[in-house]
Every structure is written in structure tokens, then in C-alpha cells.
């Protein structure tokens, strides 16, 4: 018998009492000002949230970020903003090893935990969300309203998501961090040393 059959058989041959699934339709937390809450939680986990007007506003704000202005190798997956590396032409993700700064699209934000949903739909190499020294996530707000880009909680977040293509998706909440050395929080473990979230209205 194959191991698969063996496992399935030993799992199936048991008298486990049946149990119903709970309803996920509950009163999950709502915030009076979800956008403000997102900003506060993001700050608490080491990131920054900024609302900007259009691509010009984004460029202006980025110009105030030293890590961005000092970056030698940059990647941008945002229309209207150019980086020094064209991601589409990179065959081997290892070539992205020394990227200093990446500006990537985020789809929406979650107020309760400051997470931003990021997928590889428009970024060819997943590693670009993790390997640069610094990362900014840019969320385009429909109709110019930041509120529409922020959901209250994770239940609402999953309602927004679909799983059609073989997509990689990640909730990113703040920069990479660790507290493995005597519980001291250190920002910048392996991934990004900083994370800015821009809402473009």
C-alpha cells in the first residue's frame, strides 16, 4: 500500500465525532477612523503611512526619504516612477541581491494590524518584495478616497481576495524585524530595513 493510502486509511478508519463549521459572519471589529488606526498600528510596528496626491506627490515625498535619495540601485513597479533597474529584463532573481530601494504596488490595507496585501501579479520576481534594503508600498485609492483602500479587519480582507491564478500573495506589516536576541526588538533582520506605505489619492 502506498503511504498515501496508508495515511488516508488510518485517518478515515476512526470514529471522530462530527463537528460543524462555525459561521464567519460575526460582528468583527470596526474602527471609527480605520485610516488613522492603520497609521497608528503601522507606526507601532516600525513603518510609516503617508497620503500623497498623485505620482507627483509620491515623488515629492520619496525625495524626503534619505534611504531613497541615497539609493544607487532602485526598482519601481509604479507607473510614472522610474527605477534604475528594469525588472522585466532581469532573468535571474539573484541579480536583485544589491537593490537598495524598491517601490512596489500594494493592493489594500488592513486597519487592525497594519498589513498591506502585496502580490507578484505585477512584479515578476517575488524576491523583490523581500531582498531590497528598503521598501515602499504604494496603494492607489479608488476615487481618491483613502477610506476605500483600508478595510477594518482580516475577515473583510479575505472577502476582497480571489485565488484564481497561481499567485503569490503576502500580508506585509512593517519592516523586517526580530527579537531573537534577548527580546530586544531590532528592525531590519533579513528583509527591508524600512517600510513606507503611500496612499495615492
Amino acid at each position: 500500500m502506498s503511504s498515501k493510502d496508508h495515511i488516508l486509511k488510518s485517518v478515515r478508519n476512526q470514529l471522530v465525532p462530527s463537528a460543524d463549521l462555525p459561521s464567519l459572519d460575526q460582528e468583527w471589529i470596526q474602527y471609527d477612523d480605520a485610516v488613522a488606526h492603520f497609521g497608528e498600528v503601522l507606526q507601532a510596528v516600525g513603518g510609516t503611512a503617508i497620503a500623497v496626491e498623485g505620482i507627483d506627490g509620491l515623488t515629492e515625498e520619496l525625495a524626503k526619504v534619505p534611504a531613497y535619495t541615497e539609493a544607487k540601485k532602485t526598482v519601481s513597479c509604479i507607473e510614472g516612477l522610474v527605477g534604475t533597474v528594469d525588472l522585466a529584463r532581469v532573468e535571474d532573481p539573484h541579480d536583485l541581491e544589491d537593490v537598495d530601494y524598491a517601490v512596489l504596488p500594494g493592493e489594500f490595507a488592513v486597519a487592525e494590524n497594519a498589513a498591506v496585501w502585496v502580490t507578484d501579479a505585477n512584479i515578476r520576481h517575488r524576491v523583490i518584495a523581500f531582498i531590497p534594503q528598503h521598501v515602499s508600498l504604494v496603494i492607489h485609492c479608488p476615487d481618491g478616497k483613502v477610506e476605500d483602500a483600508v478595510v477594518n479587519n482580516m475577515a473583510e480582507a479575505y472577502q476582497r481576495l480571489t485565488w484564481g491564478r497561481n499567485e503569490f500573495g503576502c500580508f506585509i506589516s512593517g519592516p523586517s524585524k526580530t527579537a531573537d536576541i534577548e527580546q530586544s526588538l531590532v528592525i531590519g533582520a533579513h528583509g527591508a530595513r524600512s517600510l513606507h506605505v503611500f496612499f495615492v489619492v
Partner: protein
Amino acid sequence: MSAIKSYDHPTNANQFNKDQERTHWHDSSLWFIREKRDRMSKSLPEWETLRSCASQIKAHTVSKLADYLEEFEKNATARGVTVHWAKDAEEHNRIVLEILQKHEAKRIVKSKSMLTEECHLNPWLEKHGIEVVDTDLGERIVQLREEPPSHIVMPAIHLKKEDVSNTFHEHLHTEQGNHDPNYLTESARQHLRQKFCQADVGITGVNFAIAETGGFVVCTNEGNADLGVSLPKVHIACMGIEKLIPKVDHLSIFLRLLARSATGQPITTYSSHFHGPVEGGELHIVLVDNGRSKIMNSDDYRNSLKCIRCGACMNTCPVYRRSGGHSYAATVPGPIGSILNPLRDAKHHKTLPFACTLCGSCSDVCPVKINLHEQLLTLRTEVKNQKQLPMSKTMPMRIASYVFQRPKLYAWLGGVGKFFLRTMPRFLIYNSLNPWGRNREMPEAPPESFRKQYAQRAKKKSDN
């Protein structure tokens, strides 16, 4: 501390307790995390609803696990994922090695996975000439020290920054005596980034796998799982069969509970959803039983399969905090480990169900509502029935039972006890024959026994 070899928890705990200052420090570090967890749980009014939902989802999944495993395999395969099945640790290791050999892989990076620890994957691969680098910082620290992790979420929680500094000085040539966590983390960052770039294959664990979509989720704060699997072409994910959940929407329950319970964060920094291989690459999933289906069969212990490995029960456990993770001599220590390990190997782990005060704190914090302390109590009876109990536990019990059945003898012995507690010199009470006098003061003997006071009160009443 790495010298701990025995399976006997009290012996190991004693060794840990020799350094009293460290024991206190360990205790308070974990309590600090427990407090963060409390604050986080209170920030959500629906906390209890989340816990009961999580518990129900897991109960439901186990009741139909075979169906969900098949559904998972079907959907994962449709996404170009190769699914493997392993009955036990040995088969798991063999499958992983075969994949590596097929790709002539020599260098592996691995993110934290309790399952691969449980299967002892590292030594097996090293034996076959493969370099395995653990990439979670805590795991890397203990790996360099050739120690097992002492906690499932914070593998190096037993170490001080001086210890880490010495380890890094020896292996990574950092400055001697520089204990700054920022400096040490930065050195590890440089070292591990090299390893990420050189790796031929990345191995991860799985936090949750979704039957409905055939995908799975891996949670880290450092981003090490993502770096490890998005540079090489091959990703191997190893998971216990109990990690399955039916629907992707159920993640909204579990991701809200996991990090809050584990470290008191609102969510881990990276919660990555894998639904297929990287462009031109391969994704393998190894589904492992290794004793899980056996636990499923037991009404008493089935609940322990709900565990999402958050570590909250360890952080709150007064015994774990004061005895250190290594004293459990097991991959999963603490309250949940004290259930899982004896179920797999009763002979070696028979002391673990007794490493418990039955205070119930673990059951109170568990995000999936496992009745940990009740299971531990049941396990004790089982250990006793299997005649695995040491004399030091059975003898006093037998004597106590004899005494309790004889009220007069009990009363007399109570008086004798009080007399001795009051009059005996310290060294006669606080010695190695009395474990209750170790590290704590015995209670002060009251001037009059309860029995006497009660009799006097009764007398007074009837006199009035």
C-alpha cells in the same frame, strides 16, 4: 545547558535552576511576552469568539481530515505543486533527500519548522553531505551552538546577549565583547544573506494549508522564509497533516490569533500565501503523519491536534518559565509538548505530564481552546496505570492514601508535623530528602490546628 541529555524533567530542571539569577531572568522574559499577549487579546472585543471559531474549525477539519487531505492534494496538484505523503519521520527525510539529490543540491536554507525538527532532518541531510542553514535568527544561533531550540517560537529565549555575542565571535568573527543586539543582528543579516544567495533549494514549514485552494501560508517576522524560497528554483514545504484548514476565509480567524498569542504582535510581519511555484521552478509539499493519526483516534487527546504552535502555553506556564525549554528534552516543550511527547513515546517522556501544577493557565491562553491541563491530568493516570511512575511519586501517594483513610492517625500526624516544623533545626527540614523545601520556604506552622479551632468554635457556640 546543552549538556542536558536525560529525559527526566526534574533532573534537567534542577540543572537549569542551579543558576538562580538566570532562572529568574528566564521567568520574567517569558512573563513579559505573556503580558503583551494579554494586551493584544484585550484589544479585540471578539477575542473569545475568535477562539471558539478557531477551535470549531479545527474540530471540524479533524472530523473530515481524509476528505480535506484529498481535496488539498487535488487542488495543489492542479496548481503545479507536487504533493508527497510520508507515514513517518524516516520517510519524510528520505523524500526530502531524494528531491535534493535529483537537483544535485548541496546547500539548503531552511526557515523555522517544528516538523523538520521533529523528524531530525538536519542531521540526516548533513550525513548525506548537504549543508543546511537555519535562517530564523534564533534558530541560527542555536544551530551554531549545536543546541536544540528551547522554545517553538523563540528558539533562543534561554540565551543572554553575551551568549549570542560569544557564539557569533567564534563562528562569524564578530567583535569580542560587543553585545549590542543591533550589531549582532546586523552581522547575522550579512552572514545569512550570503547563504540565501548561495542556496540551491529552500525548505519551509507550513503554518496553515488550505484544502479549498491547495495553497498554504507561512508566517515570519524576519522574511527569512520568503528570501529562502524566492531565490532558488526549488521550494520544499514540510507539513504535519493537522495543519490543514478547509477554506481560505478561515485564515482570517487564525492569522488574527497566531501572532497575538505568540509574541503579542497584531500580525507577523510577513504572512505569505503560496499558491504555486516560482516562474520556471518547482514547489513540493510533503504531508507527514508521524503519529498524528494515532492521536486522532483518542477522545482524550484528539484536541491536542488543534495546536497552531503559537507557544502561548509555554510563555504562561510557571513550570516552563522556571525550568527552561531544554529540560523537556523534546522538540515541543511546555504544556502542549508534555502531551504530545508522551503520546508518541511514553517510556522516555513519562515525567512530562508531572511537569505541571495544574494551574490551568495554559488552557486559558490557548487560542484554539485546547484543554491542556485536563489532558495532562488524564495522562498522569495513564502513566500510573502503565506502571511507569517512579517510586518517589508512588510511595508518598500510597502512604497518603493510607493516612487519609484513618482520621485519627491523620490528626495525630498533623500535630507531629506542626511540632517538627516549629522545632526542628533548618537543616533537618531543608535538605535533599524534602523536595518541597527546595527554592521555597515551607509554610509557617499555625499555633493551633484547624481541627482544634473548629472544635473550640463549636464548643463556644453550644456554650452560648
